[in-house]
């Protein structure tokens, strides 16, 4: 079960993910990011504080947009990942390709 809450703050669009991401629902994140890019967002921030689990299906969605973010000058950040979930990003080395922060404050002050 995955819930995505979309809010905006100081010009940034925040996608708060709650629950578990797998191959059955990763399309929800895909569509949410696609829409923000389509709407011309220049700052997309993923709030991962309530993300309990993410499989490669969800990680792949983030990966597939990294080039688009660079091409369209979109600032993409993730914050608040619980330790176990962050560990999965690190196993793949994704922390070297994405801007990941421990807290919302750290993400917004960077």
């Amino acid at each position, binding site marked *: 079960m995955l819930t995505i809450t979309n809010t905006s703050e100081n010009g940034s669009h925040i996608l708060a993910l709650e629950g578990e991401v*797998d191959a059955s629902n990763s399309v929800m994140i895909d569509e949410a990011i696609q829409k923000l890019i389509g709407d011309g967002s220049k700052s997309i921030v993923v709030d991962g504080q309530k993300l309990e689990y993410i*499989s490669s299906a969800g990680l*792949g969605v983030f990966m597939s947009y990294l080039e688009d973010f660079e091409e369209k000058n979109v600032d993409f950040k993730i914050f608040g990942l619980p330790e*176990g979930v962050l*560990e999965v990003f690190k196993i793949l080395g994704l922390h070297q390709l994405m801007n990941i922060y421990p807290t919302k404050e750290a993400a917004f002050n960077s």
Partner: protein
Amino acid sequence: MEHRITIYCQTTALSELREFLRNTLTMPMLSESEKLQITLAVEEVCANLIIHSHQCNAADHIDLEVKESENKLIFEIKDQGIAFNLLDYEVPNLIKVKGEKRKGGLGIILVKKIMDEIEFESNKGTNTCRLIKWFHS
């Protein structure tokens, strides 16, 4: 001790698989982080089979058996679909995945990094993928 589950080949069965693994991976020597990673590796193999070998055909099924011995956990995943030997699958370069804007390819990397041993055999139409995790004390 042995635990078994049969799941049908649809992606909605993955949460059922995780629930089964949550109830099975109760060994005190496993940290929460290890449990999550093992769950992830088993799910990645099953998701791959569901999507690529069975095209999400809910009439097909996958059998998972978890065997616990003194120093290791063995996850035996059996199906009757198109054989997919992940040992033959070349791990993609992450920069290449990014450049090609691909969504797939990360799951196999996770399985290979998380599990200590991977075995695959195909016999009379049944494929068996064995994932082995050693207990590190």
